[in-house]
């Protein structure tokens, strides 16, 4: 089968690889009909995440048709249409029982590696390096799905297109959880750093969860416009204004009640010297993150407010404003999205037309064009926001 393989920093190629096989009794094999490139795939593309091997198949946002099931799978049948969540969860460990699916204690087969870096290991993830299990990803024609009796969500309504439900695999629940972590009360002002797909959905979700005002911060005009149009957000261009000062003015000097970091480790800083500082340290591996957006989110947050981190980070950040956090009673809430928790409720909202996630898609490409897709996405070409691939 064809699959998008990581071949080195900034190099992906579509190669011919063996078809997946059933390895565990609870596996299923899915023929992929649609799959997306995620902002966090770009961290792999740029080799900011350790533990990649040449030949790794990427992709953790995918859906398709079940073509084979293992002997222990009774909830799915061949022909079922499913969306697959990106964390792999067994359903039986303490973490899964507590609905902390991205912390599954059994699915990461390379747990010792993750433990060395992070103290303990989270769940395995599709196509996201050998730190998190070394599972083949879904930017391919077929994929092996472990614990198919726990993860995949059946889509029974044929009137829903792939585009409408594909994002239940990752970005929509991630944005939603980012907003949920803010514990939004009526009257709250929520600020979102990053107007990529996750930021768009976080802003949208903040509105749905009752925020009175949502402010989205980015520098790409198309993305800011998207946020205004689809999330009813106010926007700030951080290259044109001083975000900290603006947010204070917009909130009577208080700062937003909650701040969502939907940017993560490849943050950009408008002041060239500071950006150069972070980039240089990152290059020399003296720090592994560029956490400018997070620093700003923390500094902007009102006293006693909440900072919700859903942008991906991997290692260690420099100059973290812990003083600001401690002295001002901030709450930090974070985590890789526990997707399984949100899939059904969000599917219902989509079916009821309360949410239409398709607005973020700017590019439809065939699987063969994946390298192009990565390049376009990485360099913001052609006003790219979200690339969907069709094998």
């Amino acid at each position: 089968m064809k699959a998008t393989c990581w071949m080195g920093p900034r190099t992906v190629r579509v190669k011919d690889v063996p078809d997946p096989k059933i390895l565990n009794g609870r596996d299923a094999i899915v023929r992929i009909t649609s799959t997306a490139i995620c902002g966090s795939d770009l961290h792999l593309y740029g080799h900011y995440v350790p533990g990649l091997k040449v030949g790794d198949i990427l992709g953790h946002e995918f859906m398709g048709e079940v073509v084979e099931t293992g002997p222990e799978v009774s909830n799915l049948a061949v022909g079922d249409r499913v969306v697959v969540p990106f964390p792999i969860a067994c359903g039986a460990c303490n973490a899964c029982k507590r609905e902390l699916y991205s912390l599954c204690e059994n699915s990461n087969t390379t747990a010792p590696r993750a433990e060395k870096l992070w103290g303990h290991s989270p769940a395995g993830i599709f196509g996201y390096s050998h730190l998190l299990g070394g599972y083949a990803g879904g930017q391919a024609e077929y994929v092996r799905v472990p614990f198919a009796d726990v993860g995949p969500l059946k889509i029974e309504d044929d009137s829903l297109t792939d585009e409408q439900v594909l994002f239940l695999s990752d970005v929509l629940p991630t944005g939603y959880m980012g907003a949920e972590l803010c514990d939004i009360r009526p009257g709250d002002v929520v600020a979102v750093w990053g107007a990529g797909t996750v930021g768009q959905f976080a802003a949208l979700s903040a509105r749905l969860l009752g925020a009175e005002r949502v402010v989205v911060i980015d520098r790409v005009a198309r993305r800011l416009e998207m946020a205004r149009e689809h999330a009813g957000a106010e926007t700030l261009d951080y290259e044109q204004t001083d975000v900290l000062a603006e947010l204070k003015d917009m909130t009577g000097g208080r700062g937003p009640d909650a701040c969502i970091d939907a940017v993560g480790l490849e943050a950009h800083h408008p002041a060239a010297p500071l950006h150069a500082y972070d980039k240089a340290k990152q290059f020399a591996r003296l720090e592994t993150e560029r956490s400018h957006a997070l620093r700003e989110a923390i500094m902007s947050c009102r006293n006693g407010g909440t900072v919700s981190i859903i942008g991906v980070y991997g290692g260690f950040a420099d100059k973290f404003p812990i003083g600001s956090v401690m002295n001002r009673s901030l709450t930090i809430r974070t985590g890789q999205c526990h997707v399984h928790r949100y899939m059904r409720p969000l599917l219902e909202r989509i079916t009821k037309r309360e949410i239409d996630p398709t607005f973020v898609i700017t590019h439809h490409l065939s699987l063969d064009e994946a390298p192009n897709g990565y390049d376009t996405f990485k360099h913001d070409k052609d006003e790219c926001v979200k690339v969907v691939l069709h094998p």
Partner: protein
Amino acid sequence: MIVKHKGIRLGRALGWFSIALGSAQVLLTERMNRLVGVDGMPTAKALMRGVGVQELTVGAAILNSPRPVGWLWSRVAGDVMHLAMLRAAMGSSGSDRSRVRAAAYAVLGVGVADLVAARALARASSRITEDGATRLRTAITVNRPPEEVYRSWRDFERLPQFMYHLESVQPTEQGRWHWVARAPAGKTVEWDAEIVEDRPGEVVAWRSLEGGDVDTCGLVRFAPATGDRGTEVVVEMEYTPPGGRAGAVAAKLFGESPEQQVRDDLRRFKQVMETGEVVRSDGSPEGSTTHRQLKQRPAQPVG
């Protein structure tokens, strides 16, 4: 189990000694040179100051480190270097031979102390004892009741299903068990063991019998985990592989850490108890093993 104070006091004393000596060498360079008998040599001042800085650095490092094994070894290396320097000084005109000789004896004396401290501290923190026995202790929580976990563990014949370093476990007469395990370099080792303590749902303890390839004893405790989270399984064991201490060190060099193996075994035990199977990925198609942590397959189907 692990003795901590041995070597620490001596190590700290040597750290302070380094600071004192280094300070004298940097601040009272002329006096020190006269004392050692090299004040007639042209490069003496620069060299003495250099050595002084070196002593200060090492001294500070030793005092700041909770386990300064490496720094103590570097003191030993430094002593060897200083002896060489003094030897060179002996052959040069402008040196006071009797003083240089005395200084050399002093360095030798301190060198012995450094060696003793380094070895004592290294041994005290190592999990490999004098006779090559490896001690380890590790724990995992399994989301199942203690009686069920105990029963699965107690079914020794099934252990090789998820304890990959075991080839087979068979009951023999008299309630004993014959174990066959994989050893480094493709060999196998065998031994007989008897159960020393057996309290269902609580503990199993065993001891190997004379005449086997491996000397081992250990116990597994099963206790309810707080917060209704199942069972805490704590494994404590000691084992001496063939080859004694040399064998244990060699095994470590080949990357076969017994501690890591037992941890991986426990991880797979938990997977079987909670999910029914050993979990496989494309990078680790046999399931999580010590070997596979380093040598992952690419994340592609096996084919």
